[in-house]
């Protein structure tokens, strides 16, 4: 899976909990939680959506790594490569 495809999956998961998401104004390198006012229920639903789309189980201790678009793409890319190797 390319980074472009992962980015699409991350944005799609996020749009599911933040329908007002505007890709043009969202800062990919900053936490989207403040930008989109994402609460803990929204964030859990975003993690569930990523789990369903990509089959990656993100533990709570890694939540901080997936709180920005760039962070989530880097994290998931690494996880997907590790899964493919094993």
């Amino acid at each position, binding site marked *: 899976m390319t980074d472009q495809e992962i980015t699409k999956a991350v944005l799609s998961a996020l749009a599911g909990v933040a329908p007002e998401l505007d890709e043009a104004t969202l800062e990919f390198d900053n936490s989207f*939680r*403040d930008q989109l*006012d994402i*609460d*803990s*229920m929204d964030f*859990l*639903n975003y*993690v*569930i959506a990523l*789990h369903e789309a990509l089959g990656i*189980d*993100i*533990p*709570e*201790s890694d939540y901080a790594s997936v709180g920005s678009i760039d962070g989530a793409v880097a994290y998931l890319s690494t996880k997907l490569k590790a899964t493919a190797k094993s």
Partner: protein
Amino acid sequence: MAEFRMPSLGADMEAGTLVEWLKKPGDRIVRGDIIAVVETQKGAIEIEVFQSGTLETLLATPGQKVAVGFPMAFIRGDGERDVTLPAVPTPPQAWPTPQAAPPSVTPHAAVPPPHLGAIRASPAARKRAAELGVELQNVGGTGAGGAITLADIEKAAAALPSPGEGMRQAIGAAMARSKREIPHYYLAHTADLEPALRWLEAENAKRPPPERVLYGVLLLKAVARALRDYPEFNGFWINGRFQPSASIHLGVAISIGKSGLVAPAIHDADGLALPQLMAALRDLVARARKGGLRSSELTDPTITVTSLGERSVESVFPVIYPPQVAIAGFGMVVERPWVVESAVVPRRVLSCSLAGDHRVSDGHRGARFLAAVARLLQEPQGL
């Protein structure tokens, strides 16, 4: 024959607009069935019936604004014989006094206001008015002979309050009433949340994302369980006296973006295991934001819980939602130096607060109740 009336879905509601009927005349209905969807200041609400029988006649039509307490349909109860209805079921004299209903409200589904025939408007203008929720009697016509034009309708629609403004007005009305009528007292206590959070983190680590539980659910459960021993915080102030509730229906304050908030009920929360309570909360939050709350969820809360959550502030001093008599509040979890067994250690702590109604309880009992909530949080595995 029973009348199905526009329910009051909160201290602040004056009227609702029928969006659609989900049952048709002749349908068998059972107590608790959803028979209609009504647009209110809290969004589109699914309306349940409180009686079993057969839906006989629909009085209100979709798009119509109906005042609280006015009949919307007739239901023939089980065992009742089929009877012929009078043409006009409720005489106008029997309607509530005018000040009970705002002037823009159509008083009765079956009977158009007497002056409606005098309004001149083109079919196109009437159609557009219905689409936009504009009531013709409120529109000044600028066309020939004072007729209402399409442009008049568009202008009137632009002046209507947006859904967000409506919700803000509803919250303002309910909170103004609360602060006017309820003699609040406030208590706060900081609880060590470290044991509960560690326990929950260990539990969640064993589970895939869909089965994880948020710590907010522990707070809800602790409040619900503590209420079993402190019934004076669970119920309603109605007609000058306190009516305790045998059931514990937790109202959960849910933020709806910038528009405001709603606090619908999780029914019988004290009897739900944590995963069930989490599922109920997830479902409630989704419906509060996307529509589909049920009428009983708005009318049944016996107490409200508000939790500020992450990216917030330490404490909240909440305002009671009438006719309830208490509200529990939780601030943001913060890490602080804390003394544990004579040593200062970093701990994650939580400010717990309570607003109580002095007509029903005092600070002494409130303090005992709040301390019980904090104590329950020290042993999360027991929740």
